[in-house]
């Protein structure tokens, strides 16, 4: 027997304090999970994606699957997603390096885990609407799923992240009732505008550029 019952409170306290230290240090470096510059750039990629979609992927304003160049649409939004993830990763890496930490952490893993269901649901909805031939209605679903993912991430981050998530959820619910073309413009407002506002807010008020 390594220790007896009477020693457990002290040992538990040591474990608890070590966990507190680790989580606080993780939270401190992951505080800017989306920094000011990252927010501005992610918003910019989304707006570019919307403009390209409107003028390169659609043949008319009805926006059913018959009027959409699906390969072009997939290429545009895959590129936007890749550019956004790469931007956030590089900015996080820079922030972590400034305090001598690695960009991957246990908290980072939990953030990815918590965001995964929302992104998976987004993928499922995309495939489902493709199957229905109604891909033009995807925008509201993307906002809802992204909002769900960001709200979950907000549990491990600062309040503005939760606020951002809920903003996407509400905007997504609203967008479901809009026409496909108006929904596309809402993409510019949300994925573009919301991220840019978040980036400016984070940079100006917190100095986390």
């Amino acid at each position: 027997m390594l220790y007896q019952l009477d020693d457990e409170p002290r040992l538990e306290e040591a474990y608890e304090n070590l966990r507190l230290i680790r989580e606080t240090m993780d939270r401190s470096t992951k505080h800017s999970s989306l920094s000011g510059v990252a927010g501005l750039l992610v918003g910019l990629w989304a707006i570019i994606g919307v403009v390209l979609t409107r003028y390169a992927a659609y043949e008319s304003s009805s926006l059913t699957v018959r009027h959409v160049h699906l390969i072009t649409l997939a290429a545009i939004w895959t590129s936007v997603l890749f550019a956004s993830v790469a931007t956030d990763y590089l900015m996080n890496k820079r922030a972590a390096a400034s305090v001598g930490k690695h960009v991957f952490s246990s908290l980072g893993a939990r953030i990815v885990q918590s965001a995964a269901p929302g992104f998976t649901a987004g993928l499922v909805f995309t495939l489902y609407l493709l199957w229905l031939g109604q891909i033009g209605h995807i925008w509201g679903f993307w906002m809802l799923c992204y909002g769900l993912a960001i709200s979950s991430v907000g549990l491990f981050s600062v309040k503005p992240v939760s606020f951002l998530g809920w903003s996407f959820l509400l905007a997504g619910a609203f967008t479901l009732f809009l026409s496909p073309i108006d929904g596309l413009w809402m993409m510019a407002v949300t994925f573009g505008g919301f991220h840019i506002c978040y980036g400016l807010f984070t940079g100006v008020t917190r100095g986390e550029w």
Partner: protein
Amino acid sequence: MSRSVAAAVTVSGKLGLSLEEIDETIHQKVRLGIMSALVARGLSDFRFLKETLGLTDGNLSIHLAKLEEVGYISVHKEFLHRKPHTSYEATEEGKIAFDRYLNALERIVHSARSGNQPV
């Protein structure tokens, strides 16, 4: 020299672990959180600490004052956009105390696992 109350804490009884001093200033949960954040992030302002640690203004102020009093953190005051802006940073003394405290915790855990007396 810090005015911190460094109390000798004996890990109780039957383990017989007699560890070196545990710094009671850092041992307090809120102050431990503050030191962890400052050591990890470096210079941080009041608002960052408040949101990261989920504390009220009053509670955070009290513990920051205590850490400043013992010399574990330094305070930087400036005007940002014409508004007062206060930032905090762990001093070298504070970082050393934090490392020492962390080592003490790790020794408690290591000793319990190995059944050995801590060094």
